[in-house]
Structures are given as structure tokens and as C-alpha cells.
């Protein structure tokens, strides 16, 4: 009765909710970019890896920085190399196409097989950046005036776009996307994720860590809340350090792994000192450092 569009089912190393899996498959079926928003560490980047792995496709990653221009994703014409070659090289400089280097989008278009294209952290770029890509993402083609060549996608890539919500994205862009917001996992969900990474982790240790971790995240003064990546690193540090579960909530060992900014460490201290009734044990252990 219904078509079986459930192509992406997840991958062994990635925990995916039903909602997210549905969103992925909807985007694939409708051939629209999938825009994934969520706090850092909620598995946005890893989702693209999981899609690629789950579907057995190559993953092309375009990391966006504040200086990234849309054009770079299409192609770059290396005029300087050409000029140099004309003087010193033994290359045939009459063929401009030697000096046209495709960007990540271009690479995805010319691929002989369908690929997964991840445009990672699109909100880092200039405000107009997403708009500048509308045409290419809609039409899946672009023109290179230098070589009078039109690059048309051989296979429409599966496009995954992530955003940490640093900037608002333009409406025209949003309207073309399938959208999903990854909420920060609750402790149960987090246990699943941890199990994927450390299947043999001591139960007691995990419980204690999760308690401390989610407590830390509730402290309003902490600017950069520890995320999944930090938690995973922390767990690893604790295991390697052979820390007993009993000590975890008392001492918060290797706290620097969870809170990377000094001001957040200070904020935690401030918090503990100003709310003495809440965690006396902590205050003592901190003050002795």
C-alpha cells in the first residue's frame, strides 16, 4: 500500500530516532536538502556519515567557515598557476580546463555514483551564503564561463546541511529544505549512544557520570554546556584513569575534559559557592585544589 521508502535505516555506530530516520528518508524521496539543526554534539555531522555508511555511498564533506564563498563549492579557476606555467612550466596552458578545480559541490555533481554531500555548519558563513546556493541546489547544475561548460549532476546527491543556529537562515532557503531539529538526548537516549561507543562500560560508572553530566548542564552560569562529545571523552578519561564510580560525583575528576573554558570552570565554582546548600561536597573538593 505504501511505497517502501525506508531506505535509510541507520548504521551500527549511530543511534537514530524514528523522527530523524523518517526525515532523512523524506528528504531522499523528495530530493530536497535535509537541514539538520541542533546544539553542538547532537550528532549532526555524524548523521551524514551514518547515511553514507547505511546506504553504502561515498561521503563528500564541505566544511563551511566564515570566509567560505558559495562559488568555492562550485569551482575555482587557478589563474596564477596558469600564469606561472606559461612562463616556467611545460604544461599546455592553452587548455584552461586544466586550471579549473571543482569544489565540493562540483565534485558531488560529477561523481559517477550518487554521493552524500554534507554541507557542514552552513550558519558559519555569510548571511547570503545559503541564498547564493539556491540555484545550484535546485537545478543541480552550474555553468563555468571560462570553459563554456555546464556541470550537471549525473546523480542528484543526497544533500545534508547542518546548522548550529549561530545565524538565522534565509526563508527562501528554508522553504526548500526538509527540516529536522535534533533535540539534546535525554539520559535514556544518551545511554544508548554511550553503549554504541563503549559497549562494556561499567553500569555504575555510567549512571554516576550521567548524573553529574546532566547536573552540569543545568547550571545557568556555564556558557558552553558540555555536549555528547565531551561526555564520551570524559568517560574514556575516567576509564583509562581507573577512577572509581564512587568518586565521580564527589570530585568531578578530569573536569577540564567537560568544561573546556576557564571561565566555565570559574562559573562552576561561583555557582557552588553561591549555592552552598546545594552541593557542599563539591565546594569542599574544589576549594582544596
Amino acid at each position: 500500500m505504501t511505497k517502501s521508502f525506508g531506505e535509510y535505516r541507520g548504521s551500527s555506530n549511530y543511534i537514530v530516532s524514528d523522527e530523524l530516520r523518517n526525515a532523512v528518508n523524506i528528504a531522499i524521496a523528495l530530493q530536497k536538502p535535509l537541514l539538520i539543526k541542533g546544539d553542538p554534539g547532537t550528532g549532526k555531522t555524524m548523521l551524514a556519515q551514518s547515511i553514507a555508511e547505511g546506504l553504502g555511498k561515498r561521503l563528500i564533506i564541505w566544511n563551511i567557515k566564515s570566509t567560505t564563498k558559495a562559488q568555492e563549492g562550485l569551482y575555482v579557476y587557478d589563474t596564477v598557476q596558469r600564469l606561472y606555467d606559461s612562463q616556467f612550466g611545460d604544461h599546455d596552458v592553452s587548455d584552461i580546463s586544466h586550471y579549473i578545480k571543482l569544489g565540493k559541490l562540483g565534485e558531488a555533481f560529477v561523481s559517477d555514483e550518487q554521493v552524500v554531500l554534507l554541507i557542514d555548519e552552513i550558519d558559519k558563513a555569510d548571511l547570503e551564503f545559503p541564498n547564493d546556493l539556491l540555484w545550484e541546489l535546485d537545478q543541480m547544475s552550474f555553468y563555468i564561463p571560462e570553459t563554456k561548460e555546464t556541470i550537471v549532476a549525473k546523480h542528484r546527491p543526497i544533500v545534508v546541511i547542518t546548522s548550529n543556529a549561530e545565524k538565522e537562515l534565509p526563508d527562501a532557503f528554508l522553504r526548500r529544505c526538509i527540516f529536522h531539529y535534533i533535540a539534546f538526548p535525554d539520559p535514556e537516549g544518551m545511554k544508548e549512544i554511550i553503549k554504541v561507543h563503549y559497549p562494556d562500560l561499567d553500569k555504575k560508572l555510567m549512571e554516576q557520570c550521567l548524573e553529574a553530566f546532566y547536573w552540569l548542564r543545568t547550571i545557568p552560569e556555564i556558557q558552553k554546556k558540555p555536549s555528547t562529545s565531551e561526555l564520551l571523552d570524559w568517560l574514556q578519561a575516567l576509564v583509562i584513569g581507573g577512577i572509581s564510580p564512587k568518586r565521580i560525583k564527589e570530585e568531578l575528576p578530569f573536569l577540564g575534559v567537560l568544561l573546556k573554558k576557564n571561565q566555565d570552570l570559574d562559573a562552576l565554582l561561583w555557582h557552588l559557592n553561591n549555592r552552598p546548600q546545594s552541593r557542599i561536597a563539591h565546594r569542599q573538593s574544589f576549594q582544596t585544589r
Partner: protein
Amino acid sequence: MFTDFYYILKKHGVPVSMNEWYTLLDALEMGLAGSSLTTFYHLCRAVLVKTEAHYDRFDLAFAEYFHGVETPEDLPETIWEWLDKNLPPLEITEEMRRNHKQLDLETLKKMLEERLKEQTEEHHGGNYWIGTGGTSPFGHSGYHPGGIRIGGQSRNKSAVKVAGERHFRDFRNDTVLDTRQFQMALRKLRQFSTRLEGPKTELDIEGTVEATSKNAGRLELVWERPRENAIKVLLVMDSGGSMTPYTRLCNQLFTAANRSKHFKDLQVYYFHNCIYDLLYLDPRCVVSNSVETKYVLRNLDSDYRVLLVGDASMAPTELTARGGIIDWGQFNEEPGIVWMRRFKQHFPSSVWLNPIPARYWEITEGAVTIKMLQDIFPMFELTVEGLDMAVKKLRAKN
């Protein structure tokens, strides 16, 4: 019927565009809703909602609409039924536009609402037109009667030829000879500043020649920081029906601006008669391809030089009334004139270019609104001389 869901979403403040709505219908046709209400819910949300800030509103709307649907088994059938229906693609006839002056805005809207109510019960297919007949009191002198346009894009375009359709032909492919003259005028719009920082990315030709000569002809490239034109330009063009006679002229200006590579930045938006809450990204002026005017005001600095292009001719209510917007299905809380003033306030360096020759400004049908807009923006006619004067105005320190 399913269309109700659309209105309930709107009621709850989930801004759903026609584009997204049709995407949802496509998805349903493709069977992407599966057979469970949950999958259907995920589908609707993923397609229609683009920020987690609206998830909650969406949930409210969903609950309100689906309180009747209990068993998941019902779902596919119900959807297929809904799919038969659609937003009635209504538009206004040319007669309606012509007769606009005889009807006040309220009557017009009421009539349309009634008609709309009748038609929500009907199967889509065919365009419903509302007209009152009558003859045209207006010529083609650039007057733009305030017709009201309903709903999204018609699914049945070919059935109807809207005389006043707001399409400029594809701007970018238009090659016009006189463009050059406009371009020359625009070239005067520059203000150089040498950048003090940033990478040296521009080839210094003189430096290179000198260095290479010193090197006895062995090439040595010398780079410098690009000298920058600090001028940023915002071009905002009316692409309403009454602008059709001036399409060629506007094309020329657009092409000229677009080719004037010396601007630090060029932004182009479109509007229909007057600026309200939305600015459009292409001349079709459809909501599905628009941005909020507020977004533009927030993100473009006040130092943009603004060229507004339009015949400034419309029904006075379009400027003065709440809800005066010509596009039905949209509602402006604030009168157009407020938006216009706000625009000018944010961009002190703004001018208006009017394709209607200046000598007609006081006698054309649009005289009232032309005058009102002249009070806000210095207005020049869209000719080479007019553009020259406008550019001078824009260069002057404000």
C-alpha cells in the same frame, strides 16, 4: 477537508508557504506518509516547519485538526479524500482591476471572502474568477488598479491568461543595447577606499612590470590589496502589472546594475506596488520566494544606497490602509506608507526612479500616490539623465 489543516496551521502561527504545502501534497501522493499517524506527523512537520521554535505551535495545530482521527488505519483513505481538494486557485479578472475604483477595499474583500467560502467546498480544477463586468475607465498610462489576488499560484495557469500578471521576463538573459548608458551613469556611483588589511590578492600590474624588468624579463608577480569601492547598492523594483509597459526599461537598469561589477555589494529585491512585510527575491513576487522586509532592514547596513524603481501608482489605500496590500491572502498590519518611511529612515540614501515621464506625474491616475511617495523619497524619472541626477543625489553626503 485537508485544506483546513493549512488554515489551522496559519491560525496557530506556523508560517506555511504554498511551496511547502504543495511539497507536502506531493509527498502524500508518493506515499511518504506511510500508514501510521506518527509517520504522517513526522512528514508534515519535516516539510512544513523550519524552526524548532514553531514545533509547539505545529503540535497544537496538529492536535486541533486531528482530534477526530483515532485509528491509524483510517489514515490513508482520509488523506486520499483530502487530496482531491485543494486551495481554490482564485484570481482577479482584468475587469475587476478596471473596476476597482468603483469598489472600496472592504467591499472587495468581503465579496471575495464569500466567494472563497463557496468554493472551498468544490473540487479544484479551473480558475474561479470574480468580476463585476463593466468598462475600463483607465488607459494604459501606467495606472495600477488595486485588484486583489487570492491564494497561491494557480495550478491551472494555461487556462487563464492574466493580463496584468506580474512577470518581468527573465531579466538576466535580456541583452539590451542602451544598458551601457545606464551603466555609465552607475559607474559614477563609487567611493574608493584602500583596504588596510586582508590578503594581497590583486595583481599589481605596474609593480609586476617593474619587478619583472628588473629581473631581466623573468616573471615576478607583485600583489597588492585590492582597492575597494565601498559603495553598496540595494535595488528594489516594482514588478506589478502596471509596470509591464516599462519592462524593457527596467530590464536595462537591472542589467546595468548587475554588470556594474564595481559595487562592493548589490542586492536586488522586488515588490508589488508598495513595500510591506515581505520583499521578493524574483519578479514573480510569490510568497514562497520572499524574505521578511525586517530581515533585510536588520541585515543590510544603513550605508546601502537604495534605488527604488516603480511607477508609484496605486490605489491610495494601498499606501494608507491597514490591509491595503494588493495581494489577497496577505494582510499588512501597518499601512504601506509606514513601511516606506521606515525604509527611508533605515536607508537615508534612497532615491525613487519612476519610469513615468516626470511631466505626467501630476496628471496621471497615480498622481496621488506619486505625490505621497515624493514626500518621502527624492523622485527622478527613469531615463539616463534621471539616473544621472539620482546618482548625484546618492553620492552626496546625507
